[in-house]
């Protein structure tokens, strides 16, 4: 199932392995991963704990270098952190000393650009995620879901073509999570980003993704790819349809065959 790495692909991983040496000797975290994401495509990765999902994300963002194989973003080989990605982690990772808008403008400051040039874009994003009026609040004044929305704005403020999300809603309660899923779909459809979403939730993966990639336990390999052709925009009610359940079951079976999710 080697996918040819075309120049147009936003993400292109070819035969990527990652081994690291720990106390227990050399551990193979990822084993010959091939992955391609077309512009605007929404990919979800599910897999058991410790299968290297987060490692995969660090490779794509340039935080880690592969032991073998090549990672390309928009056709260019990755040699370290690059400007083409916005990253969202499970914890919102907001800086408590900064207001909402100052948090969102952090990537601009780190790039050494003038934040004034991006203030309008930041405020637009704040409106987009439904936080209008909260620009000058501090994180401790916001709920968990609101904080994660700020994290999303921060990832989008530089308008990167690629959004990497590592279990972004894993720490939220079930109801907030569903709501955030719906909003993420809306934002994705509006902004036309390529998204790589790592998640523990099969429902979340099937609801959001164009393709769900299933990973095996360590060493992580992509063992199944489930295309999700449900029409967009998908409603939360759609998660109760037979088609949805069949797709979710297909993902679940692949996971179980690989050793289960936990």
């Amino acid at each position, binding site marked *: 199932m080697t996918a040819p790495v075309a120049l147009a692909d936003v993400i292109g991983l070819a035969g990527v392995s990652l081994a690291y040496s720990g106390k227990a000797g050399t551990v193979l975290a990822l084993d010959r991963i091939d992955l391609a994401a077309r512009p605007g495509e929404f990919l979800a990765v599910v897999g058991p704990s410790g299968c290297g999902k987060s490692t995969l994300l660090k490779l794509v963002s340039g935080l880690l270098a592969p032991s073998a194989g090549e990672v390309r973003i928009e056709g260019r080989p990755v040699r370290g952190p*690059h400007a083409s*990605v916005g990253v969202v982690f499970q914890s919102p990772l907001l800086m408590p000393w900064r207001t909402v808008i100052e948090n969102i403008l952090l990537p601009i400051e*780190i*790039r050494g650009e003038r934040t004034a040039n991006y203030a309008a874009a930041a405020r637009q994003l704040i409106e987009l995620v439904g936080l209008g009026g909260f620009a000058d609040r501090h994180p401790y004044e916001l*709920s968990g879901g609101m904080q994660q929305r700020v994290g999303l704005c921060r990832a989008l403020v530089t308008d990167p073509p690629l959004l990497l999300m590592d279990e972004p809603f894993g720490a939220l309660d079930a109801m907030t999570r569903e709501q955030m899923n719906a909003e993420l779909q809306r934002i994705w459809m509006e902004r036309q980003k390529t998204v790589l979403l790592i998640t523990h939730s099969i429902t979340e993966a099937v609801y959001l993704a164009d393709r769900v990639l299933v990973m095996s336990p360590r060493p992580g390999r992509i063992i199944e790819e489930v295309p999700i052709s449900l029409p967009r925009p998908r409603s939360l009610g759609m998660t109760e349809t037979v088609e949805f359940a069949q797709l979710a079951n297909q993902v679940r079976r692949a996971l179980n065959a690989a050793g289960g999710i936990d």
Partner: protein
Amino acid sequence: MLSGAQALPAPTEAEWRRRLGNILLPLGLMAAVIFAWWAGVKFFGIPDYLLPSPGAVAERFVKDHDLLFRHAWATLSVILLGFAVSVVVGLGLALLVVLNPLAERMLMPLVVGSQTIPKVAIAPLFVVWLGFGLAPKVAVTFLIAFFPVVISAVTGLKSVENDMLDLVRAMGARTWKQVWKVRLPTALPQIFSGFRIAITSAVVGAIVAEFVGSDSGLGYLLLTSTATLDGSLVWSALLMLVAIGIALFVAVVRLEKLVIPWHVSVRNAG
């Protein structure tokens, strides 16, 4: 929560009573201590050179306030200079230690070792090395006060979540941007608790230094007045020292409130 912070309501009667209590109760305790002191001296008939009564001390304080303030000023400059050097060197060392594991292995034994040396024993050496002026006193003060700065700053600078560092690295932040944008602000609450300890240690350090090689300062005044069994002057100098110590501590706490208003410890203090 959604509607955010409303304007604070005007303080109620209960609120005023609470605020009044916040002022009156500490003053009351202080008055009780002074009363106990006075009663003890009277009841047991303690002679002046052992423990003078509060009244005698107050009288002396007023009479010799010129002398006391002059020496207090000398001590205050030693404290402030020693503290300033401690802050600069302490934070510098902490950064070095946090960013470079090898530096940590090399420097930390020296830093810890420096604390096991009795300052009273080494203070005369500083006079021999650095002369009879301000320098040896600042050096002794520094030697005591820099330690809490280093320890707290190292802990603070290290207590950044890995994900947070990954996040700013992914944004392209190099070492110094990481320090400036993430590590230092994260560490500020810890650093300030180090400052609180350091400023009080600096007071002790300055006095130790003045005991050994000085002809001015409250330490010198304490030494000479103790030698002549001048009880009321000893206690006047001590009270002056306590006042300086408390004032400096409060100044650091105020500064902390200004610099890190976002931190839980500051927000909860109201």
